[in-house]
Every structure is written in structure tokens, then in C-alpha cells.
């Protein structure tokens, strides 16, 4: 081989290599900084929301217990109790799960196991697409269709109710729960199905006794994600909840969940009132963090 140009300029090469190592180091640092940015964001968010939210309890002598368990929310009279809202959020979420999860799960099973391929190929992406529709539109639909429907057909005095919230949330979490659990079900190894079918077990039997249990952790993830969506949803709920300040005793009561309390009054609030809305945010935040924690637990279990 003729004199190779690469080896020729040995010294220069070494110099340029040193440059390269420098660049390597620098870029590595830069990349790390970028990655740390999400940590910074999270810390900032937690920091600011908690700082603002705890302010009245730390410096102004409001009692956090009264805040959590108080039943009166009259900002203009300095009464800040969010117990009705906590109850509303919890009920709304549970209700939405009770209605939404079975339907979503059955739909996912249907799409993954039963539906003819051609059908599943149309329906699955369509359902996914719906996960992307702005939640406001679900609210518009709820306000314009579900609320009057409940009013007229159940003979309610007000259609804005816990039930309306539950229905809207159940609908909204369908796409998420369907899509995630469908993926989980599809990921169950074919060998499980074959093993069961080879024992002369029917297809449906196989699905419910082997496939779904095997996809358990994925399905749980789906449920927790759906739950997160339900607890955190704001703009759709605000339109159908009625936002009354009562502890709901029936499905037909109108309610004010935590999220809507913030969105409803944030614009109008100042001073302690505003800080109390941040405190509401803290409570909401804690619910979500708890859920995330549960989710992390589930997925680490699923990994094993």
C-alpha cells in the first residue's frame, strides 16, 4: 500500500485527537446538563407550588388540618376548607374507574384477541387518536349533551353533577386505558395461549384465565394512568361539575373537584386566596405523586 495519508501526519493527528477528546468531555457535560434540566424543572415546580401553598400555614397561622378537613370554602370570608373537594375528587375518580375500566379493558381484550384483524386495524388507531383530542372538547360534549341528557332523562334539577363528571371522565380515560392494556395483552407470549388451547380450553376461557392474568401488571399500569388522567383533568370537568361547595351524598349532587377549584378561582384570586389555591394544588400533587409511586412499584414488579 502507498504511503497512507492518515499515518503520515502523526503529530497533527495527535493534536486533533486531543481536540476531539476535549470536545467529547465538553459535550458529555452539556448532555448531562440537559438531562438534569428535567430534575431542575421538577424541583422548581415542587418548590414553587409548595412554597406558595405552605405560606399561609407557616407564616399566617392557618391550620393545615382545618384546611384539609374544613367544609367551608368562602375565600372572601377567609374560610378555606377543601374537604368537600377532596371527597369530590376521590368519588369522581373512583366512579370513573368503576365505569371506565371494565369497558376499556373489555375493549382492549376484544381488540387484541377477538376482533378480526381488519377490524382491529381500524379501531385501535381510531381509539388512540381519541387520546389526543383536547379535553376541552370532551367538556363541550359533556356540557352540551351529557348534562341536558341527565337533566331530562333522570328528572334531575341540575344535570351538572357528580354523575356527569364521572361519565365524562370515564369516557376520557377510555383511550388511554384501552391502548395501554391492549399493548400489554398483545405482549403476552403466544406460548401461553397455545399451552392453554392445547389443553382443550376454549378461547374465551384461555383469555380470561391465562392471558389477562399474565398481562396483569400492564393492565394495572393502564388503570393507574387512567386514574391519573381522571384526578388531574380540569377543563372538561369544570364545565360539567356544577362546582357546588357541598360534600356529595349522592351521584346527582353537583360537586367541585380539586382541579376545578384551582382553575375556577385562580384568575380572580389574590393574596391568601391565591396561596390557598396553591395549597389545593399541593393536595392534588400529593395524590398524583402517590399514584406515580404506585405505578413505579407496579412496573418494577412487572419487570421481574
Amino acid at each position, binding site marked *: 500500500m502507498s504511503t497512507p495519508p492518515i499515518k503520515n501526519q502523526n503529530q497533527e493527528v495527535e493534536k486533533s485527537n486531543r481536540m*476531539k477528546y476535549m*470536545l*467529547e468531555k465538553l459535550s458529555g457535560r452539556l*448532555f*448531562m446538563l*440537559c*438531562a*438534569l*434540566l*428535567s*430534575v431542575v*424543572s*421538577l424541583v*422548581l*415546580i415542587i418548590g414553587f*407550588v409548595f412554597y*406558595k401553598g405552605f405560606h399561609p400555614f407557616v407564616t399566617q397561622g392557618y391550620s393545615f388540618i382545618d384546611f384539609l378537613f374544613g367544609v367551608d370554602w368562602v375565600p372572601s370570608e377567609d374560610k378555606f376548607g377543601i374537604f368537600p373537594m377532596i371527597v369530590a375528587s376521590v368519588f369522581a375518580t373512583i366512579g370513573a374507574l368503576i365505569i371506565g375500566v*371494565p*369497558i*376499556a*379493558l*373489555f375493549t382492549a*381484550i*376484544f*381488540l387484541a384477541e*377477538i376482533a378480526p384483524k381488519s377490524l382491529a386495524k381500524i*379501531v385501535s*388507531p381510531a381509539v388512540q387518536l*381519541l387520546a*389526543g*383530542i*383536547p*379535553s*376541552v*372538547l*370532551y*367538556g*363541550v*360534549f359533556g356540557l*352540551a349533551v351529557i348534562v341536558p341528557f341527565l337533566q331530562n332523562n333522570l328528572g334531575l334539577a341540575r344535570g351538572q353533577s357528580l354523575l356527569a363528571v364521572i361519565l365524562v371522565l370515564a369516557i376520557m380515560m*377510555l*383511550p388511554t386505558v384501552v391502548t395501554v392494556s391492549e399493548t400489554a395483552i398483545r405482549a403476552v407470549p403466544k406460548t401461553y395461549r397455545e399451552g392453554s388451547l392445547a389443553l382443550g380450553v*376454549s378461547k*374465551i*376461557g384461555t383469555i380470561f384465565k391465562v392471558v389477562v392474568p399474565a398481562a396483569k401488571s400492564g393492565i394495572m399500569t393502564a388503570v393507574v394512568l387512567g386514574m391519573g388522567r381522571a*384526578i*388531574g383533568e*380540569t*377543563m372538561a370537568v369544570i364545565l360539567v361539575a356544577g362546582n357546588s361547595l357541598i360534600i356529595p351524598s349522592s351521584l346527582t349532587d353537583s360537586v367541585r373537584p380539586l*382541579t376545578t377549584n*384551582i*382553575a375556577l378561582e*385562580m*384568575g380572580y384570586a389574590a393574596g391568601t386566596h391565591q396561596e390557598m389555591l*396553591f395549597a389545593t*394544588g399541593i393536595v*392534588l*400533587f400529593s395524590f*398524583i*405523586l402517590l399514584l406515580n409511586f404506585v405505578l413505579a412499584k407496579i412496573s418494577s414488579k412487572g419487570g421481574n
Partner: protein
Amino acid sequence: MRKFKDNVLNGLLWFSAFLTVAVLVTIVGYIFYKGYRLINIDFIFGDYSPSGHDGGIWPMIVTTIYTIVISLLIATPIGILAAVYLQEYAKQGKLVRVIRFATESLTGIPSIIYGLFGAVFFVTTLKLGMSIISASLTLTIIVLPVIIRTTEEALKVVPRSYREGSLALGTTKLQTLYKVILPSAMPGILSGIILSIGRIVGESAAIFLTAGTVAALPESIFSSARTLTVHSYLVTQESGDIELAAAIGIVLIVVILVLNFATTFISKKLNKADY
């Protein structure tokens, strides 16, 4: 007995799937049915009018585009580099776990909390005011985890052999990264970006509290302004005009639809790139 149970369950499966599809079709159908009459050129490109019904939504479209462009301009490079760090540079350890936890937690935070944060941090503390830039920065944080995650997934499927092949030729990690790894991960990264656009377009609570509701063509990124989704919310809220809200909804759904097709198209291309 088993047969009977099977049949019942089978029936339930069909019924649930039917219900899901029916509900979702109803919603989309309703929005189109209510809103299609208002859709025309003047509506899309016309200026907002305070008297409502006869005005257009051009200022909101512009604002929406602003927020998309600015948020992505910031979030995309940061997100990609962060993913590169996590996948290619970081040694698995505490730091990575902390970063992962943070990213995952950010994904789960409801947008109203982002709104609260944006309102005190960007709007008040950084004195950016209610403005497109405040909203865009808030949105940046919202989509950052989305981009990080999808990019990480895309990087994961780049075969190890590409990295080895390149490094074995005496190239640096950086060279390998931008000549070999990033190009092969590009389709995956793109679909992450499109996903983020969807998220930005659909967001309301966080924007509402950080950009305000000014219904005029924004002068600059420091102007307060109103996005399409916020507009659709306010129209429902303030004037109770369902038809108008639905018409805006149609525009939003079409945008989401187009984005979805783009994602599918790109991921199809991804598969081709493998061969």
C-alpha cells in the same frame, strides 16, 4: 355451563368494544355536526370579532403556532440531548435513576399544576408576564419528558453493532452519535416531536393561566394571547356558544388527525430504513 359463560363473556366483549367505539364516534360526530356550518375561509383566516359568532380564529391559530414553534425550539434539542445522555453517556446509577424519576413524575403531573407553576415562576418571578413566552416555557416543561422518552426508545433500538462498528474505526462518540446513531433514530425522534405537538395543541389549563386570554393577533412573543384550545374553552364558558366551540373543535381534531397520520407515516418509514 362453561359454554354459557363463554357466550356471555364473548357478548360482553363485543358490547364493550361497540360501546367504546360508539361513544367516541358520537363525540367526534357531535362536534362535526354542531360546528361544520361555521367552517369557511373567513372563519379560519378572519380576524376575531368581539361580537363572537361572525368573527374568525386567525389570531388563535397564529398564537397556537407560536407556542408550538417556541416550545419545540427549546424542548427538542434539550430533550434529545438529555435522552442521548441517559442512553449513551450515563453510567447506570443513582443520578440516572433520579433523572428517570423526575422525567416520569413530570409526565404524570396534571396540567393545572403546570399552570400554577408557570403563573408564579415565569409570569411573576421571571417577570415575563402573561405572554406567549411564559406559556411556551411552561409547555416546554410539559413536553420535555415526552421527547426524552420517545428519543430514548428510538435510541434503544439502534443496534449496538452500529456503535461498535463506528467506534472501532477510531471515531469519537460524538462523531458516532451524529453521523450514525441520531440519523438512524431520527424517525422515532420525529414521532416524539409530533406527539409533543399534539400535547401542545390540546393543552388548555396550563396556557390559560400563563398566556392569558387576549383575543388579538399577538404583536410579539411577549404579548398575551389566546390559543385555539383556550379559545374553544372560553367560548363555551363566556358566551355559551356551543356551535362556535365545536367549529374550533373541528379545526383542532383535523390538526390532531393530520399529526397522527404524520406519525404513522414516519414510523412506517422507520421500518423501511431497517432494510
